């Protein structure tokens, strides 16, 4: 499965993931406390500068943010109908800046580094007996492993529908897809337990 991490070696890639996530969290709070348009302009400019320096081509960089920028624009236009223009501009700048910073962290942090942070975050929960931190990695691995198989199965079900001349409808395709997929659970669980992967 493709990831949004950009395989490059900029100074941003080398900062520790924990620091980057910490800065992002702080920015998330600070940006919502700022109401001044010039300051937010600066934030957007810095965010854009960092984001376009992550090693992504400009086209790819814009393509990634298009849906979210579109939703910001739609909400802003909607807000503009009822709110003073100052509020609408502040909101747009704030969200765009935050989106740029967030996308920068995503582009410069590898999946493995994120998993380490999530496992570390889950450690206190493990001490409370709520979950096993190692299960998170196992679950993520299972999903990545099984998505292509589910897509294949969906294609097979579609073809079976077409062969029988049945119109493809979501209700009739989802039911066999869900049952066939979940029926594997017993075998997969047995295989995991047989290898002692969850034994601690």
């Amino acid at each position, binding site marked *: 499965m493709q990831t949004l991490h950009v395989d490059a070696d900029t100074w941003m890639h080398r900062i520790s993931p924990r620091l980057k996530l910490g800065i992002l969290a702080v920015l998330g709070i600070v940006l919502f406390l700022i109401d001044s348009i010039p300051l937010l302009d600066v934030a957007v400019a810095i965010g854009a500068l960092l984001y376009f320096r992550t090693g992504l081509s400009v086209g790819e960089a814009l393509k990634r943010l298009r849906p979210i920028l579109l939703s910001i624009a739609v*909400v802003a236009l909607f807000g503009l109908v009822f709110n003073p223009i100052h509020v609408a501009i502040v909101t747009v700048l704030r969200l765009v800046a935050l989106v740029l910073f967030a996308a920068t962290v995503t582009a410069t942090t590898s999946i493995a580094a994120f998993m380490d942070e999530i496992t570390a975050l889950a450690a206190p929960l493990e001490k409370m007996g709520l979950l096993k931190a190692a299960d998170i990695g196992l679950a993520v691995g299972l999903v990545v492993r099984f998505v292509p198989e589910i897509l294949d199965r969906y294609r097979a079900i579609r073809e079976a529908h077409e062969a029988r001349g049945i119109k493809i409808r979501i209700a009739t395709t989802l039911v066999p897809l869900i049952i066939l997929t979940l029926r594997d659970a017993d075998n997969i669980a047995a295989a995991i337990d047989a290898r002692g992967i969850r034994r601690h």
Partner: protein
Amino acid sequence: MTTRDLVLSALFAAIIVALGLLPPISIGLIPVPITAQSLGVMLAGVVLGAKRGAIAVLIVVVLVAIGLPVLSGGRGGLSVFAGPTAGFFIGWTFAAYITGYFSERLVKAEQTGIAQGIGFFIASVIGGVVVLYAFGIGWLALVANIGFSKAFLGSMAFVPGDLVKAVVAALVGRAVMAGYPLLPQRT
């Protein structure tokens, strides 16, 4: 949590991801094709129940957070949490839990098919519409600064589509329960 429960949740998370990769499908009830990913959230609760359904959705949230483009349209990464509609995404987990909770209470194996379908529909509406929109509208109002009443009105445009999804979730939930029952029973 048993290994089987973990695997069931992970497999359902994989189904939700796969639903985002499929081209929009016609559902037969309305002519407009829909993206099936938010339907997957209701289905997680309907098929797996509260706990396992919520964990399935939580796994998808983790996948998005670590930078995998698993949402429909190839969206993913931390920027998903920063947009004006992030409340709906964050609300997914709670929507699946509440859908599952009411499914477990309302639907019994010995009921007739119609009663099961109605139970699943009510559970899907409470979880996938009422709870989900509470999160989505709250976020829109506070983060996107457009005020509660306007956020509420603006979001209402999407409710009919989600009600149709609740109908589909009820039909699919009932059929899965007949073919391969997994829903825990609660009294």
